[in-house]
């Protein structure tokens, strides 16, 4: 494989694609698949076959008129399943099986647009992303190819400029040049810590020794984040190319992709990408005629959040319990099997080819002073448009939530207007951003200054109906479960913090509870070895800082302002609405409801177990809770 061969593949692919009259791209990201996109793909295939259309499922030497492909995540999960028609560039949303015949008939055969399947923007139907606010405000750089190409087609990746930067890295650039480009680009780790990528590589490059490793960290354990899975599924070759460039920079000849066990689709797509790349000669031995070798294997995790931490991940690749080790030595000095190892996050590695292609200055043109480039986020929670997004560092929360996300919604899905409460960012290590921070430019430094972090990029929007104590408890439960047990303060401290939060939620807390919680939080931060323990109290500290009055309402008034804490609720029957049918009394497992047809029914608060059975059973909405 050399430059000419890559160019040949590019020319061939583009010529063939130009011969196709059109191309149907059905989104096969996780969200769309769950909403039935694979059935839609099958339906296209069946209808095109039944109608005798000339079509291909992969681009062949003599291409058919129509090309049917499955793409990676196209981003707008809220509107899934998505179907894009090229080259007309039409985006159909919420496509159902029964719509397929119409799309084939009208769009493919007659060149018309099926207007009812377009996204209905405020100004009217939008033909494609250019008319949809969700896409308009994004800058898709790392995700530029995600959802646009067939992730399983190596030739298409090459035709989009793929593997050219890996070739340059091996054949034209010196290792120190690559490290320098990375340093000048300002690229920082997208997995959480934000460590400068170039500096990490340089440290490993300077280590002596023949054997070095590159590990791609795809153990995206942060609950509420799915960007890395989209990148691995949507552009697996970009991840491989990033690893190759890293290998060229440090002189590694072996790579491992560590993928979380919950992502079987990512495993299978990366597996195919590796096999294809080897067969094509872009991965394996004597790369680009340089005599250098680099190969990659996949390791599936087995379910442990702490393995997202570098040293714990290394331990588990070595077949041991995933427990962190003290640093230094850093993995760049002594990592996998004691050899110099660099570990980069999926998104970081998938961005590396882009940095080389654009050049460091062009890449760094976007972003803020200390945080260059763009960042992907998974936008979820109480927001109208959930999905995978990518924005430049420096974008504000208001832009993301109100404009891209289309605003906050209530629990029942209706527009919540101004009822934004907070955004949780950075998962179990992160914190909350409040209304006051809506206009703060998001980057590594600003987030850190308010007690949050970029983390891997999960953005969970919360409305006024969310109880912040419950959110803190949710994360504490998570870290308590995932604490590996090595450091006592983390193992026992998180358990005690959880118990204190339970006291608050269940009405047992007193004036000493909150100060004790804070004291314990600082102890856990100080006494833990790894990132998991050090940051475990963050969700508690952050909610305490910004929503202290909500904690105090639980403790002092035994009241949950959001009405979510069951134990603090009082159930009551509204005599006006009650039809005296007695159903609630029969359903009550604690026999706390007494009364009869004549006098009506009432709930005895002392024996009520707050199970919700009365409220669920009442057909007249006469049971209320507050």
């Amino acid at each position, binding site marked *: 494989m050399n430059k000419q061969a890559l160019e040949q593949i590019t020319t061939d692919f583009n010529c063939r694609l130009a011969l196709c009259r059109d191309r149907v791209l059905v989104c096969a990201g996780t969200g769309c698949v769950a909403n039935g996109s694979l059935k839609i793909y099958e339906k296209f295939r069946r209808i095109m076959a039944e109608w005798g259309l000339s079509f291909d499922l992969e681009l062949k030497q003599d291409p058919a008129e129509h090309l049917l492909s499955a793409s990676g995540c196209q981003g707008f999960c809220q509107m899934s399943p998505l179907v894009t028609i090229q080259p007309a560039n039409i985006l159909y949303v919420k496509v159902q099986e029964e719509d397929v015949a119409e799309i084939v008939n009208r769009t493919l055969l007659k060149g018309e647009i099926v207007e009812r399947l377009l996204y209905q923007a405020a100004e009217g139907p939008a033909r494609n992303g250019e008319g949809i606010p969700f896409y308009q405000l994004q800058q898709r750089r790392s995700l530029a190819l995600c959802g646009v190409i067939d992730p399983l087609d190596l030739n298409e990746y090459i035709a989009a400029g793929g593997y050219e930067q890996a070739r340059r890295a091996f054949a034209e650039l010196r290792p120190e040049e690559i490290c320098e480009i990375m340093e000048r680009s300002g690229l920082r780790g997208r997995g959480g810590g934000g460590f400068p990528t170039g500096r990490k590589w340089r440290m490993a490059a300077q280590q002596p020794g023949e054997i070095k490793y590159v590990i791609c960290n795809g153990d995206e354990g942060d*609950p509420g984040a*799915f960007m890395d899975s989209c990148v691995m599924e949507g552009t697996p070759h970009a991840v491989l190319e990033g690893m190759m460039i890293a290998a060229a920079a440090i002189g590694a000849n072996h790579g491992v992709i560590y993928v979380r066990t*919950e*992502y079987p689709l990512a495993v299978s797509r990366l597996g195919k990408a590796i096999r294809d790349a080897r067969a094509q000669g872009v991965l394996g031995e004597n790369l680009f005629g340089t005599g250098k070798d680099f190969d990659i294997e996949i390791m599936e995790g087995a*379910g442990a959040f702490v393995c997202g931490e570098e040293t714990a991940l290394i331990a588990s690749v070595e077949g041991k*319990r995933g427990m962190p080790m003290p640093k230094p030595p850093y993995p760049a000095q002594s990592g996998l099997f004691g050899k110099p190892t660099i570990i980069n996050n999926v998104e970081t590695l998938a961005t590396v080819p882009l940095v080389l292609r654009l050049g460091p200055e062009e890449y760094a043109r976007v972003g803020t002073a200390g945080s260059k480039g763009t960042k992907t986020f998974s936008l979820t929670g109480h927001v109208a448009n959930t999905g995978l997004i990518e924005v430049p560092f420096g974008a504000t929360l208001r832009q993301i939530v109100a404009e891209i996300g289309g605003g906050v919604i209530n*629990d029942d899905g209706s527009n919540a207007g101004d009822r934004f409460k907070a955004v949780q960012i950075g*998962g179990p290590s992160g914190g909350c951003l409040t209304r006051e921070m809506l206009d703060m430019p998001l980057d590594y430094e600003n987030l850190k200054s308010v007690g949050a972090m970029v983390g891997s990029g999960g953005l969970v929007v919360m409305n006024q109906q969310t109880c912040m104590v419950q959110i803190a408890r*949710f994360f504490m439960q998570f870290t308590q479960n995932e604490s590996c047990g090595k450091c006592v303060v983390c193992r026992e401290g998180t358990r005690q913090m959880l118990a204190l939060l339970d006291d608050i939620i269940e009405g047992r807390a007193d004036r000493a509870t909150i100060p004790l919680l804070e004291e314990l939080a600082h102890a856990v931060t100080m006494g833990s070895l790894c990132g998991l323990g050090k940051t475990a109290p963050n969700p508690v500290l952050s909610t305490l800082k910004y929503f202290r009055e909500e904690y105090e309402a639980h403790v002092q008034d035994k009241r949950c302002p959001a009405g979510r804490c069951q134990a603090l609720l009082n159930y009551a029957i509204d005599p006006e609405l009650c039809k005296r049918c007695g159903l609630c009394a029969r359903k009550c497992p604690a026999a706390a409801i007494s009364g009869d047809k004549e006098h009506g029914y009432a709930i005895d608060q002392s024996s009520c177990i707050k199970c919700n059975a009365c409220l669920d059973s009442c057909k007249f909405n006469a049971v209320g809770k507050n």
Partner: protein
Amino acid sequence: MENSKFDAVCAILDAYRHDPNKLIPILREIQDQYGYLPEDLMIFVSTALGVSPASVYGVATFFSHFTLEPKGRHIVKVCDGTACHVRRSEEIARALRQELGLQDGRDTTGDMMFTLETVACLGACSLAPAVVADGVVHGSMTPSAVRALIADIRNKEEAESHE
């Protein structure tokens, strides 16, 4: 025929060339094959790899993917990631426990038909709250929708048993 139980393990160990560094993938494959990690197989693996039974047991109990007990025929996972949580996944989990009659912290039904698991995040956050039944993701779940889902699986089982 007693030996046949170990044949599959031997094949797996051979495929990984008895490399102790590959303990996790080896255990994964054994679990895929047998449904769980029986104690005698873990001891067998430890002898074959030349590591202590304690190390194998340590790894098997460290990672949540591994189970030392047989699971039900149908695995239902409730996602309790942040996005699902704020969209009230706990109500989904409660409805499932009730529907399956699971009490006292048990996760598998007495007839070995269902195992209920809670997972931290499935990556299907835009479909919150999500449930995975036998590998198929179901999004935007409600308590009544999960009850229907269980009823559906039960009906299919019943139809099969009548065949």
